[in-house]
Each structure stands twice: as C-alpha cells, then as structure tokens.
C-alpha cells in the first residue's frame, strides 16, 4: 500500500512538472520569410539590367575577416547581424552598384537600410566633387527589402532590377 501511494505521488509530481514545462514552452518564432539562394539572386539581378558595366563583386562566401572588412565599404551595420551578403559595383568607378544583405533577423532591416541611405549619400558627395555626371544615377537609388533580405540598387534600370528582386521571393 505504501509503495502504491509512493508510486501515485511520484506520478502526480511528474505530471505537474510536465505541466510546468508546457507552460514555459518557448514562444513562437516570427516568420523569417522565404529563403532564396544568394548566388542565384546575384545572377538574376545582374541579368535584369543589360546596361550594367563590368562589375567587381564581393561576397560573404569567403568568410572570415576579409568578408567583414569588405562589408564595411557598404554599411556600418554590426557585421554580427549579417548572415550573408553580396556587393557588386562598377569596376571603372561609375555609380552603378547592386548589393543584397541577408540579415540574421528581420528586425535589423531598418538599421541596415538607414546605413545604406548614408552610404548612398556619401557616394553622392564624392561624385559631386569628382564626377558630377554620375550624381543623377545615385539620386535614383532603390533600397527595398523582402523579409530578411535588403537590396540596394543603383543603376540605369533600377526599376527592372527592383522587380527582379521582388519576383525572386514570389512563389512560382
């Protein structure tokens, strides 16, 4: 009898512990949105504007300090917030550039986009000084996001590239 009571008591305690565990279950994660392959996205965006000049492309694939250093040319956002990125800019020094940053958390998007605005303004200032003919292109810069992905687009056909970026996240 005593053993039965002990067993019952233990079972009841275990059930209560489980109930507590259920009550402390982790909260639901926010939907991070669709994931796309960054290499494919890079090819898609560059192909969308046939007027792009020859580009220099840097990505985060190499990893390490070099990727982090290269990122600073684009944004002053804490690199720890970045999951992946690519950054393509005109080799000859004109204003064209296309960059996509995949963040670890969509909540960092506003901060990243603000830093990209600053980046564009800095480039504008430089071009005003050394090559004013490039300034109109920078004035039409596009900065858009899809979930964790933020794109900076500065090129002749920025509308087409923007459409290609958005289309990449649509279900086909």
């Amino acid at each position, binding site marked *: 009898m005593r053993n039965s009571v002990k067993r019952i008591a233990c079972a009841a305690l275990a059930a209560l512990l489980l109930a507590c565990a259920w*009550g402390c279950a982790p909260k639901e994660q926010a939907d991070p949105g669709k994931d796309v392959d960054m290499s494919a996205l890079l090819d898609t965006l560059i192909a969308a504007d046939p007027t792009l000049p020859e580009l220099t492309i840097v990505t985060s694939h190499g990893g390490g300090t070099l990727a982090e250093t290269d990122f600073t040319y684009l944004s002053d956002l804490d690199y720890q917030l970045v999951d992946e990125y690519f950054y393509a800019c005109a080799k000859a020094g004109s204003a064209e550039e296309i960059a996509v940053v995949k963040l670890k958390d*969509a909540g960092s*998007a*506003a901060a990243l986009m603000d830093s990209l605005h600053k980046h564009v303004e800095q480039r504008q200032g430089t071009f005003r000084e050394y090559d004013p003919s490039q300034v109109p292109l920078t004035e039409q810069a596009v900065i*858009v996001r899809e979930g964790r992905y933020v794109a900076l687009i500065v090129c002749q056909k920025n*509308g087409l590239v923007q459409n290609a970026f958005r289309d990449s996240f649509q279900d086909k």
Partner: protein
Amino acid sequence: MSTQTETAGGKTQGKGLKAAKAVGAGLLALCLVGSLGLNVYQAQAQQKYAAEMGAFIAEQKDRWAKEEEQENAYQEDGYKVAGEYEIRSTTHISDAYKSGDDSQLSAEDKDTLKMAKDVLDEVLSDGMDNYEKELAVYQWMVANIGNNGSDGVIVRPGSGGSPFTPHDVLKSKNAVCVGYATTFRLFMNMLGMDCHIVHNDYHSWDLVELEPDQWYHVDVYSDAHGAEFANFNMTDAICGMGHSWDGSALPVADSVKYSPAVQNSVEVDSLLDVPAQFKKALDEKQGAVYYRFKTPLTEEEQPKADFLAALLENAMRATIEDAYFQAMWYPGEDGNDILGLLVERYDEDEPDPGFDSTSPEAKAVIRAIAEAFGLDPAELGDTGDDPDPDIPVDDPIPVPIPEGNGGSVIID
C-alpha cells in the same frame, strides 16, 4: 488484562496519528498542486505578454523599415499626364478579346471591345506577323485618328470631350497623346504583344515588344501630326533625340530590325546617287525614304554626307512650298548607318501650323520687344510697312530734304 487495554489504546492512538498524517499529507499535496498550478498560470500569462510585446516591437521595426524603403517610382496605369489625363488599364478588355468572354465587362468596355475588334477585322489579314500587324494598326490610327484642334496634350474647352481613353478615341476619332498611347496599347495587347506606356510630365507614347526582348518606341500622336514613320519603331537612342523620359523601369529598346529605315531602305551605290533617287521620290510624293550604301560610308565621308543632306534640304524647299524636311542617320542591322530623308507636306487646305512671322500680329510683337529693349525692329525681322511690290527692296525710299536747313534730315 491491562496489556489488552494498553494494546487497544495504542491501536486507537496509532489510527488517529495516521489519520492526522494523512490529512496533513493531503493538505500539503493540495498546497503543492495549487502552487504549481499558479506557477504554470503565471508562466503562461508572462509568455502571452511577452508575445504581445514582441509582436508590437516587430510591427514597429517593420514600420521603420518600410519608411526606410526607397522604391523606383515609375508608374504607368494611374499616372496623370499633364496632371489631367489618366493612363487607365485596358487589360480586362484585351483579356476578354483573347478569351472570347466579355461577360465581365461593363457596357462601355464592351463597346470599346467591339470598336477595337472591328478595326482589327478591317486591317488585319491571315498570316501577318507581329510587325505587320503593328504596322497595319499604326497606319490605321495615323490615317483615321485626327486631333481635336489641340497642338499639344491639352484639350481646349469646346473641343468635343476629353478623348484620352480608347473608348472616346475610337468613338470620336479624336485623341490627345494619352488617347493615342492607350488605344495603341489596347490593340497591341489584343494581338498578344506586350506594350508599355512611356511618359513624362506632358507627353506619352508606346514601347512595344515585337519579338522576345525586342522593344520599339512608337509615338503615334507625333506621327499623326507630322511626318509618317518619323517616330515609328525607334530605339532608345533615336527616341531620345526628340523625347525625354525616365526609362529606369522600362526595357532596353536597342533593336533595329523593325525600324522603318531597315525595313524600307533602298540600296544605292554611292552618296552621289542619292539626289536623283530623292527627286524621284519627291515626284512620287513619298513621305519618307531611306538609303543604305552598298559600300558603307567611312568616317571621312560622313561630313560629305551631312553636306549633301543640307543641300538637299535647300533643293527640296525650292521645289516644294509648305513642307518640313528632316535628314537623319539611322543604325542599320549590319552596323552601317542608313540615311533617312523625311518630308512632311503641309495640307494646302489646312492653315499652316505655326505662327506667321509676317502677319500684322507678328509685327506688333516685334515692335513691342524692340521698344522695350531699345532695338531696331528690323534687327528682329520687321521690315516696316508692306513694301510696294514694284519697288525692289534693296532700293532706299527717297527722303524729302526740307528747304533751308543745311541738308539735315529729320526722320520721325
């Protein structure tokens, strides 16, 4: 005897103790359960609150990110050219044509569809490719859609409505530029061709895809009021000579296969064969002629070609009154340039467009400017009163010299 009594009392005491223990244990268990239950409830309430806060913060971050967005702002449907003439979608009408089901269309859209279908039935024939269909529609519109007396995009009061939709255009056979552009787009969409409307603040025209990734600018409005084919199937570069627009969201138009120059050019052996050919074309009242050279012109020969074009213009003006002439170089498919000579004859029955600089009104304008700026009206083109046709202009009109004042002349 006492042992049994002791034993009975001991048993009673033992049972009581057990009962007390049982009650105590039960109460303790109840307290434990209650405490744990409370903890569970509090944990859940905390979790719910955290979720709500998280959702609020995420929403705020989302809103900030949205405010940071800077998108390409080019707009087609919904844009109002000149702040007044809205470019309206006609996709539902062209879709109804292609599907054969117009049940979802309004009465006006059904009317539009019928009128547009009648035009296509009239101008198209079996076996036409996209270019031939486009050309047929373009020529019909140039020949049949007039203007409402407006020289630009603005419709003046009393001019008979605001023909900026395909319905009003096809009904009234009048159009402003938006009317031409949206009607042409409707026709192209009905024929299965993608077509954008290109616009700036005050003008609009079309960008049509004749083959995959081969786009061409077509400004039907300008050609209906000017030289035919002057603004037909243009590349971005050619169109940019007479138009300005934001092409950042529009496809590149750099194909020349279906340009009028490539489609209609005549081969000549050399530059010196052009004058005779052009004179023949003028006699036949052709509006646009294009010449490609058997031996492509070199860079050194280019100034000679430009000189020839300028002299042709002088010769043309000596031959035809009231006409506009334009010489332009067009890119050929093989990379060699084609010389295009466009002639727009002004209709003798129509008033000469533009302002008559010899009219009394023009003279009044010239004199007002001359007076304000202290200039001689003759410097601005005013030759004074209409001269006597019997007196050559170069001969000075004699001024009477008053007697006795030593030869000085007072001119009022």
